[in-house]
C-alpha cells in the first residue's frame, strides 16, 4: 500500500496553497477575457494558460528544469523573444501614413508623458504604507503607459524581472481595454466641433521613402540613443525586410510563422511569472492602478498635443487622433475612428490615426531607451 500512499501524496489536491488557487483563478480569468471577451487573445491566452501551468503544485513547470522556466530563461531572460516580436511587428507595420505626415510623430512623443508621469506617481506611492518601489521598478511599471507589449516586457526583464508578470498582464489588459478607457477622456478634452474636423487626404508615399525610413530611424537611434538600439534596431530590420521588396520570403516568415512561434512561447514564459509569491503582493495592486493612470494620462496628453497642433497648423487636424499616440496598434486608431464617426458620420479618421499610432510605437521604444540609459 506504499505505492497507493505515494500516489495520493502526489495528487495536486493535498498540496495546493491558497496562493496557487488564487493564481490559477487569475489564469482562468485571463483565458475568459481572451476567449469570451476577445481581449488581446494572442497573448492573454498563452499567458493565462502559462499562469495555470506554473501554479500546479509538485509539477514544477516554472521551476528550474521545468518547461516554462527554460522557456523564460532562454527567451525573456535574454531579451530575445520581445526583440523577435518587435522584428515581426516591424515587418507588419506600414509607415506610409507617418511618412506622408511626419509631424504626427509629435503626438507619439506627447503621449509618452503617460510613462514619465507614472514613473513620478509610482515613486510618490512610496508614501503609501506597504508599497515600496525602487526607481528601476517604477520605470518598469511606468512603461505600461507606452501601451506596447514587447517594449514593456523587454524593459521589465531588464529593470524588474520580479514584476514582469504583473506588468505584462497589465499592459496587454489595458491595451485590450482601450475602447473603454480612451473615449471618455477624448470626449472630455475636445469640443464637438473639434471632433467633427475632417482631415485632408494623405499624399501617396513612394517605395524609396519607405525603404529609407527604417534606415533613418535606426541611424538616429544609433547616434542619440544606443540603449534603444536593440528594440528599434530589430523593429527597423523587420520594416526594412518588408519594404526592401527583395527578401519577401524573410519578411513573410518574420510576420507569420516566426512571430507566431515566439508569441506562443513568450505568452507561456510571461505566464510562468504569475506565481503566487510574485503576483499576490500589494505591488501588483499598485501596478494595476498605475498602469490605468498611465494609459489615461498618455491619452490625455496626446489629445492635448493634437489640440495645440490643430490650433497652430494650417492644415486641419482633428484632435482625436492624438489619442492614438499611445500606440496600442491598431486598437487605438480604431477607437479614434469610431469616436470621430460618432461626431460626424462622414469623418473617417482611421488612416490619419495610423500615423500617430505607429509614432506611439517608436515613442515608447525611445522612452524605454531613455529609461534604460538613466535608470538601468
Amino acid at each position, binding site marked *: 500500500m506504499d505505492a497507493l500512499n505515494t500516489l495520493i501524496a502526489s495528487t495536486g489536491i493535498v498540496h495546493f496553497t491558497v496562493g496557487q488557487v488564487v493564481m490559477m483563478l487569475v489564469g482562468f480569468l485571463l483565458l475568459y477575457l481572451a476567449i469570451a471577451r476577445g481581449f488581446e487573445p494572442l497573448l492573454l491566452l498563452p499567458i493565462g494558460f502559462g499562469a495555470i501551468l506554473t501554479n500546479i503544485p509538485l509539477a514544477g513547470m516554472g521551476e528550474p528544469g521545468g518547461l516554462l522556466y527554460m522557456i523564460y530563461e532562454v527567451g525573456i531572460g535574454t531579451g530575445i523573444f520581445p526583440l523577435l516580436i518587435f522584428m515581426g511587428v516591424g515587418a507588419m507595420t506600414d509607415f506610409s501614413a507617418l*511618412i506622408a505626415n*511626419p*509631424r504626427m*510623430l*509629435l503626438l*507619439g*512623443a506627447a503621449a*509618452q*508623458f503617460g*510613462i*514619465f*508621469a507614472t*514613473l*513620478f506617481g*509610482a*515613486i*510618490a506611492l*512610496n*508614501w503609501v504604507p506597504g508599497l515600496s518601489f525602487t*526607481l528601476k521598478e*517604477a520605470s518598469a511599471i511606468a512603461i505600461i503607459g507606452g501601451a506596447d507589449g514587447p517594449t514593456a516586457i523587454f524593459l521589465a526583464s531588464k529593470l524588474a524581472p520580479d514584476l514582469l508578470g504583473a506588468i505584462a498582464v497589465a499592459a496587454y489588459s489595458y491595451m485590450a481595454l482601450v475602447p473603454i478607457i480612451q473615449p471618455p477622456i477624448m470626449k472630455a478634452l475636445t469640443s464637438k466641433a473639434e471632433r467633427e474636423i475632417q482631415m485632408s487626404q494623405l499624399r*501617396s*508615399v*513612394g*517605395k*524609396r*521613402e519607405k525603404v*529609407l*525610413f527604417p534606415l*533613418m*530611424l535606426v541611424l*538616429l537611434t544609433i547616434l*542619440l*540613443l544606443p540603449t534603444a538600439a536593440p528594440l528599434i534596431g530589430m523593429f527597423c530590420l523587420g520594416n526594412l525586410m518588408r519594404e526592401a521588396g527583395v527578401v519577401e520570403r524573410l519578411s513573410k516568415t518574420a510576420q507569420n510563422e516566426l512571430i507566431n512561434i515566439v508569441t506562443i512561447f513568450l505568452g507561456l514564459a510571461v505566464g510562468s511569472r504569475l506565481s503566487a509569491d510574485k503576483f499576490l503582493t500589494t505591488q501588483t495592486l499598485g501596478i494595476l492602478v498605475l498602469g490605468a493612470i498611465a494609459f489615461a494620462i498618455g491619452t490625455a496628453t496626446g489629445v492635448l498635443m493634437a489640440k495645440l497642433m490643430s490650433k497652430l497648423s494650417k492644415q486641419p487636424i482633428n484632435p482625436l487622433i492624438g489619442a492614438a499616440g499611445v500606440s496600442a496598434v491598431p486598437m487605438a486608431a480604431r477607437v479614434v475612428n469610431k469616436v470621430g464617426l460618432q461626431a460626424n458620420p462622414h469623418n473617417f479618421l482611421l488612416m490619419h490615426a495610423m500615423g500617430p499610432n505607429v*509614432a506611439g510605437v*517608436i*515613442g515608447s521604444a*525611445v*522612452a524605454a531607451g*531613455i*529609461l534604460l540609459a*538613466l*535608470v538601468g
Partner: protein
Amino acid sequence: MVSDLLLESATLMLIGMVSVFTFLLLLVLLMTIMSRVLRRYSPVKVAEKSSKTDTVSNGLSPAVVAAISAAVHQYRQQHK
C-alpha cells in the same frame, strides 16, 4: 528618502520628455528633408510605385489570379 527619489523622478520626467521630443523632432526634420529630396529627384516614380502597391494589396495571390484568368479564358474559348 522618498523626497530624494521624488526629486530624482521629477528630473527624470523632465529630461525624459525633453529627450523624447528632441528625438522625434529630429526624426520629423530628417523625414521632411528626405521626402523633399526624393520628390525633387524622382517625382514620377512615386505615383507608379504606389499604384503597383495597390494592385498587390487586394490580397489575391498571383497563382490564384492566374488560375482564374486561365479558367475563364478556357471557358470562353469553349463556349463562344
